[in-house]
């Protein structure tokens, strides 16, 4: 019981924000689509009344209700999907982890998709129209005829909500690991249910404020959304690049660099370097080492709370969850000259070892 309460509170606090950072893009693009629809419908209504001007759009209570509904559906779908995942993880009880490379590839895809969509919304070039799918005619006809009878059409947020299981944030991954460790489908399901439920309020409040505010800003809102999606898309790309161990990533282009040389330690017969694992970076994040000599990384945490604790070296398939406070040594076999990227499991913070 304590576990479930802890999972709920984790979701309520760190989980909600962390997940919003990772999955917010999906939600905002879904709401953007929703608003595009609403705007279109309002224009039609106005046109029907002989008022052609789009500037007369107003965010009525109906529209706010629909945005709220879309967010609620997104969150409900998410809740159901994660509970199912918890169930499966508990049932598996064995190792189920997307490899960093696969996860990275997924993030890169998502990033490209989001950036493309943002550029489409900004009307940069006709080519970006191809970043949205045109549903087949039989489907659109079906949707149209259902919509004419029933009014509502909310399948997009539901599908997007379900899709979020493929991009869990760092905190969620931790809870997923817990669910797996529980080794019992019901416990696993309950853990993830409690956690995801905890993440929902902050998701809802932020997303709702965002949309009802946006509806008033009318057209400008589309620009803001596009800019936000662009931004989140770039973050997603960056995450992906870090996870696949790319030598170039956006954060490393702009982030501060601290450089240090790994020094030979005669006692352990390898070069040793200490890396401070802080909440928002690894320091140093550029380590020089001699090629062909084994090295040891001493990862020092000191009341570290963030996902930097999930330390990974994608190309060597090394993944280590560090304690909040402590020192963990990771031995790296001799490497050829070149670079070796390390990153947190979410690809948010990264660094590299350069073998010379």
């Amino acid at each position, binding site marked *: 019981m304590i576990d479930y309460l802890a999972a709920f509170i984790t979701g309520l606090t760190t989980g909600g924000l962390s997940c919003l950072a990772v999955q917010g893009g999906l939600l905002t693009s879904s709401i953007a*689509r929703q608003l*595009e*629809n609403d705007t*279109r419908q309002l*224009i*039609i209504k106005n*046109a*029907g009344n002989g008022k*052609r001007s789009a500037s007369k759009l107003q965010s009525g209570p109906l529209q706010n209700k629909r945005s709220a509904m879309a967010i609620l559906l997104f969150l409900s779908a998410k809740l159901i999907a994660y509970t199912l995942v918890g169930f499966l993880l508990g049932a598996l009880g064995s190792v189920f982890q997307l490899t960093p490379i696969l996860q990275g590839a997924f993030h890169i895809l998502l990033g490209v998709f989001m950036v493309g969509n943002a550029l489409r919304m900004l009307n940069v070039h*006709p080519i970006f*129209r*191809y970043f*949205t*799918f*045109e*549903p087949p*005619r039989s489907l*659109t*006809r079906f*949707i*149209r*005829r259902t*919509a*004419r009878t029933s009014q509502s059409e909310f399948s997009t947020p539901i599908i997007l909500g379900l899709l979020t299981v493929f991009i869990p944030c760092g905190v969620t991954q931790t809870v997923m690991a817990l669910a797996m460790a529980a080794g019992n489908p019901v416990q696993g399901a309950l853990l993830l249910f409690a956690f995801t439920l905890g993440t929902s309020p902050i998701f809802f409040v932020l997303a709702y404020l965002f949309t009802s505010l946006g509806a008033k800003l009318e057209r400008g809102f589309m620009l803001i959304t596009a800019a936000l999606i662009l931004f989140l898309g770039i973050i997603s790309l960056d995450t992906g690049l870090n996870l696949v161990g790319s030598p170039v990533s956006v954060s490393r282009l702009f982030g501060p660099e601290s450089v240090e040389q790994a020094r030979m330690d005669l006692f352990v017969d390898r070069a040793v370097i200490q890396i401070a694992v802080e909440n928002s970076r690894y320091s140093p994040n550029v380590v020089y080492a001699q090629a062909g000599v084994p090295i040891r990384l001493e990862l020092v945490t000191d009341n570290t709370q963030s996902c930097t604790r999930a330390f990974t070296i994608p190309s060597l398939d090394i993944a280590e969850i560090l304690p909040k406070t402590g020192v963990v040594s990771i031995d790296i076999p001799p490497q050829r000259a070149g670079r070796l990227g390390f990153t947190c499991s979410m690809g948010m913070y990264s660094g590299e070892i350069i073998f010379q």
Partner: protein
Amino acid sequence: MEKREYRVPGMHCPNCKIWLEGLEDDLPGILQIYASYHQQILRIEFDDHLVSESEIIRAANDLGYQLLAE
């Protein structure tokens, strides 16, 4: 039977396709209708005894789309 193809620069998202193709439910005599957001076009085949080109253009206008002759 008549066939026409129009450019529709006002299509701003894939859902416009749904609205434009909805003309087949609004007007009589529409035999085939195809709209594409990607290509920004509307292709239409209609029975000119039942519906006229100007009626189609007006109906699309009422939906908020301007049809331009290819």
